[in-house]
């Protein structure tokens, strides 16, 4: 993944991780599976980066991790949204959608895109 996109990607990843644990607490593996499924494997990210994202969120007290037991009776660390995580997710989702919509509006017309490319080259 190109380095320039890192910040943007990080923010996006954090958002996706938070979204992943909205329905119910999940462990790290569960979150990976959820994101893969939800994005149909379009977002390619190393699993480790996802765990780092979880730590960032934990430090900001947006998610809370605690040890629990899986259905297969294995110990796993479950993550859930905190109250402020819920708030942040709601706010960031709104911001993100508006932002993405604006970007999309600008970039969506083919002609616009071609003119842009011509100007740039």
């Amino acid at each position, binding site marked *: 993944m190109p380095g320039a996109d890192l910040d943007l990607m990080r923010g996006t990843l954090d958002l996706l991780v938070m979204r992943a644990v909205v329905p119910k607490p999940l462990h790290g593996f569960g979150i990976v599976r959820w994101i893969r499924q939800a994005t149909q494997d379009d977002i390619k990210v*190393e699993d*480790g980066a996802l765990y780092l994202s979880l*730590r960032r969120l934990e430090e900001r007290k947006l998610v809370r991790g605690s040890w629990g037991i899986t259905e297969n009776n294995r*110990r796993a660390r479950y993550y859930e949204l905190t109250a402020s995580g819920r708030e942040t997710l709601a706010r960031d989702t709104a911001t993100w959608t508006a932002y993405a919509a604006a970007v999309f509006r600008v970039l969506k017309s083919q002609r616009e895109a071609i003119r842009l490319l011509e100007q740039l080259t």
Partner: protein
Amino acid sequence: MSWGPIRRLFLLAGREPSAAQSTDAEVEFHLSETTAWLIEQGWKPDQACEEARRQFGDVERFRKELGMADERVQRVTKRGEWWGELTRDLRYAVRGLRRAPAYAFVVIATLGLALGANATMFGILDRLLLRPPAHVVEPASVKRVVVARWFETHLSAPWSAISYPGFTDLRDGTTSFAGVAATVKASLSLGIGIEAKRVRAELTTGQYFPMLGTEAALGRFYGEAEAAPPDGAAVVVLSYPFWQAAFAADHAIIGRTIRLAGRAFTVVAVAPKGFTGADTEPIDLWVPLPAVGRSAYGRDYLTGRNWQFIEAFMRVKPGVTDERAAADATLAYQRGHANEPRVADQKGAVYLRSLSDRGSDTARIAFWLYGVTVIVLLIACANVANVVLARGLLRQSEIAVRQALGVRRGRLVRQLLVESLVLGALGALLGVGLSQWAGDLVRALVFPGTAWDAAPVNGRVLLVTAAATLFTAVVAALLPMLRTTRTDLAAQLHGGRGTSRQAPALRFGLLAVQTALCTALVVGAGLFVKSLTRVRGLDLGIDVSRTLLVSSDLLAAGTPEPGVRAFFERAVARLRLLPGVESVGASIGAPFMSNYAEGVQVPGNDSLPRLAGGGPYFFQVSPGAVEGFGMRVLRGRSFAETDRQGTAPVVLVTERMARTLWPNESALGKCFFSGPKGGPCREVVGVVADVHRQGLDEEPFLLYFTLIDQREKPRFPDYIVVRTAGPPEELAESIRRALLSERADLPFVEVMSYQRVVNSSAQSWRAGATMFTVFGGLSLLIAAIGVGGVVSFAVSQRAKELGIRAALGAAPGQLVRVVVSSAVGAALLGAAIGIAFVLLLSPRMESLLFHTSATDPTVLVAALATVIALALVASLVPGRRAAQVDPIQALRSD
């Protein structure tokens, strides 16, 4: 079966793994889950494992980064959890206490009283002993000078009064000091006539303020120039409270003049708030000693080495040890006195005392009293421990259930600690409140004569109280609570009384400790009360109950000496006519005020016998003063109006002087020389009962009385002594008016009741008696609550047993004995230990008592009787209920 759901149900998470373990476990879990999933998707196991690692990314790098992040997260969450649990524990504790209000009340009230007493006395001790005077720069290097005098064979105990030349010896003959100053405390008259007021002044030499390093709040302090002998300058420094009270904190006061001792003094400065000089007594104003010295102390005070009435303070130079400084000062002092006829000062030794070392009896008593409050606190601890233990028994099933559910002991202990701290904190809050109120009371009633600048409760008091509270909470509440966590779960849960067998023994021990300490305090109270009674019953040789001392510093107000003498004569004659006055006389010096010493030669005796208290001392009086003081003439006659200037010179001697000088014969008709050489031999015409010279506790000394008019150079009197027919205080105002009608421009006329003068000497014993009695009473009260509580608990705990006994035909008396015996036994044992404790400690206390042995048998017996009687009453009141136990009821219950 998995414990998970059950654990989750009770919110009992397992032990949290460490950060590193947690990271590793999580990564392992992730990799294995991914592998399993990949295999499910059709991967071959070994490839699946590789693929899982590939998808994860650089495992080692992430592991490291995650580990670091985890540590940060865990630190933050731990702190959060800690607070969360604390608030939970607090809420739990408060809820528990609200469910048991009687228990909470007893514990908090007991702790509150004890902590309050402790805080109050610490506040006083802090001011008297621990804190140096305010606004003194580097107070540790400023020293108070005390001089031990050589008495024939030994050095006396040092005291602080020295002469003005003695001070200049120290100032000019030493090299170890950065500043040397002297002060005298005096009362001066502010204004004249009917509006005159008395102010507390400190007369100082020039280096006083520079030596202390104090900065004026307003204006500038005077220095060497203004305080240069012989007369100095008429300038005055006002104390902050006096400036506020008398001049409404007027900032334009600097440069204004006030009438002090009849003269105009210019206000040059206002001292900073809280400044009381090198001491802690309240002072209204400071003036240079020479400005009033000559008029107040006569012409000779600057040169006379016998005029020992000032105190010196010296600042040791940096780098000089105290020992070297003291040796330097001693050398200078001895050099200065080398040519003196009296050896006492020639071989005197100078000691340097720190400013906070007041060395006064009051300070020492305050120290003891603080110790007493610590004992009260211990008694309260024992009491609270007993109550907590009793409640612990009731709570055992609750605690057992919690333990069975898997609440770890550490968690439980924390909860109990929080509960005991809550109790302690509430007690401390009550105590500090009490101390805020009682502190002022105690200061005013028991420790007057100290400038109490700040509120009774200050930061240091709070700090000490907090420490005391922590100690109390741990000792009195936590330790006994901990016992309850060590119980037999099975027994508890099966409904039996799993009471550990040691609990009664522990309660018995606590009760004994409590009674022992209480007994010690009651003995202390008894000893001080006895001392005070002894002091009150003391034969001072004068009758203080109906005697007034009247004085007015006319001389200081600028009246020349003959004028002063004339006024005193007129005043005595005027007061003699006042209704309610029995006898009046004038005197130079007075018992407990000031006195004089002079060499005496007895014809036929080469040298006078020496007594431990020194002498011979003498008072000069006018006829009528002997009766005015209420002195008793044992043999011969008193002075008469016919003894005057020109007639045969006569003296009165005390019984002790008569017996010492003429052991086997009558003193009457004997004569001795005193005063300047070549004077007449004065005939002893009477022997009076021994009179105290300056204090209540004195070594034997020689003392005689001469007539003012029969001296070579008669001085002016300084006191008029008035003996009243009725209560003396009632006459004070008419005496003041009578004197003002004689002369309208009089400075303040001081009318002191002798009783008050003597009372202030008895101050330390009174303080001891009052406070020991208060604290002794407090401890009795607390102990009574303790004994009563234990018995009443025993009654309810043993109701079943009592019921069986009653059913089997035990008499009511026997039932009462069952519940009362152990408490009374503990009290008896405690009282015995307390007496032993007193016998061990008392030798250290003896010096504070007045003619009372610290092992005084009547006091010991009375204290023992009090404590035992109290224990009996306190245990019988709840104990009687044992006789009323209804067997049927008792057996049915439970």
